[in-house]
């Protein structure tokens, strides 16, 4: 039983997600790489299974559950053999929709949250800009009010689900003189005139469609603002917590899966007359990695439990994000070494993990952003 299987329902939900991963995602993992995105119809299937609204109000089609179920889901999705696909799904569930669910008004939730939970609409989060990433306050995309509309100009980059998204949770500057009170979050349908995107060519996470958006005098109703005008920065900071915790859970599931596959490889691979797994160097390295993975999983579990208990987990999640990113990179690096030449092939799970895991230390706030926050918290 996994650490987050608190009840029989958790176990059953794990079974369902595992089956979905084994039947729908893993067999098509390389196909999604080729396509550069997940098959959009799978969102509908995930919606029917209840996977896209775990913590959201049943009134909007959600399940009204807590973070422990999200942990179960991403522990299983992390084993999909396609980190890009897992990321695309997590953008829908934990990066682009939490603010809308928490702060959006009834009409906005009916129009955009309900179909997102049902998998009929795909969402993306649009914060990063060509000149502002982890420094969120440095964004320049501007929304100027014109009657009942916002008129938006600017660009957003590294947007996951760029080609599949039906709407963006867009962070814009609505009052450049109001400091942290000058940002707003807006639901922006992607089919509006004045929006165009181009896809970006990444080194890893190939199963997700990452793009650059341009907004040229895009008009959207002011009614599409999520929560209060001017509260976008604060709302986005809260939304980041879910994003980071998802990254911890899914990256450690991926690392564990890779470790297990590497062990299988080491047991079968024979060198100098004996299996690789019987060599002390292999055993010591594998044990070391296992210790790191378990330490990271335990830290992550502590974060999940704080979230379940409704406590502020910001500091712990920040540490977990920093630690999990580094552990996943180390695991991938060492596992490539065990695989030798094969590990350097694109078809090798270790090789893919090597480039995929690199993103954990960058996306959702870089390692340096995490350390900057922690240094402040510790009084430096």
């Amino acid at each position: 039983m996994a650490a987050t299987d608190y009840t029989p329902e958790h176990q059953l939900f794990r079974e369902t997600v595992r089956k979905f991963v084994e039947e729908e995602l893993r067999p098509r993992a390389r196909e999604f790489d080729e396509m550069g995105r997940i098959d959009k119809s799978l969102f509908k299937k995930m919606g029917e299974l209840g996977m896209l609204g775990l913590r959201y109000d049943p009134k909007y089609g959600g399940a009204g559950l807590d973070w422990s179920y999200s942990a179960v889901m991403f522990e299983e999705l992390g084993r999909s053999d396609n980190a890009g696909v897992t990321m695309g799904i997590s953008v829908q569930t934990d990066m682009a929709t939490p603010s809308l669910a928490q702060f959006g008004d009834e009409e906005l939730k009916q129009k955009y949250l309900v179909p997102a939970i049902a998998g009929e609409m795909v969402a993306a989060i649009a914060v990063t800009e060509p000149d502002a990433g982890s420094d969120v306050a440095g964004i320049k995309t501007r929304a100027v009010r014109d009657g009942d509309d916002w008129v938006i100009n600017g660009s957003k980059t590294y947007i996951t689900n760029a080609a599949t998204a039906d709407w963006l949770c867009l962070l814009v500057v609505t009052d450049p003189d109001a400091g942290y009170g000058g940002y707003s979050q807006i639901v922006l349908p992607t089919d509006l005139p004045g929006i165009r995107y181009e896809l970006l060519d990444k080194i890893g996470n190939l199963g997700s469609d990452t793009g650059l958006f341009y907004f040229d005098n895009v008009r959207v109703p002011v009614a599409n603002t999520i929560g209060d005008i001017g509260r976008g920065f604060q709302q986005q900071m809260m939304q980041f917590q879910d994003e980071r915790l998802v990254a911890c859970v899914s990256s450690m599931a991926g690392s564990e899966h890779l470790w297990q596959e590497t062990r299988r490889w080491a047991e079968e691979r024979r060198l100098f007359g004996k299996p690789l797994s019987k060599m002390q160097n292999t055993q010591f390295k594998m044990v070391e990695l296992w210790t790191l993975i378990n330490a990271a999983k335990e830290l992550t579990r502590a974060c999940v439990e704080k979230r379940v208990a409704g406590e502020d987990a910001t500091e712990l999640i920040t540490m977990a994000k920093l630690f999990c990113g580094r552990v996943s990179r180390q695991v991938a690096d060492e596992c490539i070494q065990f695989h030798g030449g094969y590990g350097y092939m694109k078809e090798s799970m270790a090789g893919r993990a090597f480039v995929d895991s690199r993103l954990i230390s960058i996306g959702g706030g870089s390692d340096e952003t995490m350390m900057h926050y922690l240094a402040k918290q510790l009084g430096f």
Partner: protein
Amino acid sequence: MKILVCLKQVPHKDARLEIGSDGTWIKEDGIKFEINDYDNYALEEALRLKDAGEAEVVVATIGPDRVTQSLRTALGMGADRAIHVWDDSLANADSLGIAKVLAAVAKEENFDVVFCGLMSDDSNYAMVGPMLAQLLDIPHVTAVVKTDFENGAVKVEKELEGGTLEVSQVPLPCLLAVQTGINEVRYASLKGIMQAKKKPLDKKALSDIGLDGAAVAPKLSIEKIYTPPKGEGANLLSGSADEIATQMVGKIKELGLL
């Protein structure tokens, strides 16, 4: 319509199996279990009847505490209630013993249809279904690949050798032992899982269904299970694809098979 689906919990298809110390079965400690794949299709067939109209779907299984997980999965998929029978004397039960227990369960209610999988993934006997039908004195069809229920009977397609199909009309009540691939098995949705919490799961001892250990004592016992030793004498052919093909034809001719 009242439907009974007989389920068996078997080792997970990805479990790393090791032979137990007495050499008669695998080590069950620490491995995961799941619903026998054939039985998943049987359950799905029953749930489709339920979806199509008025039907109650009851699932039954025999096994230690761990099998409740599979029953909960079945309830999460849409079954209405579950029956779990266990007694330590059933630990080494043979097919007839299992069929007797299921017959006793089935006799307590008037089921119109009993569904089961064609066989189990672990022991492969394929006997429980036909034996159960015999004990219940109802007709049965095995290797079912299609069902069409109409007017108190079912038109059944059964798989024969070489892709041939046999069609028969069977009156209800009857037992159908289902082949895999007959349908697309649904997942237990989160909503279904949460609803399953409130569905009845009856635990029964042998005495609750009018049986005792002697009645189900096995007549068949496993002497040993083992991994076949690696064979010898394989001919490895080398060369280009054309060369290998030529060598292969030569070998086949040598053996007088061509």
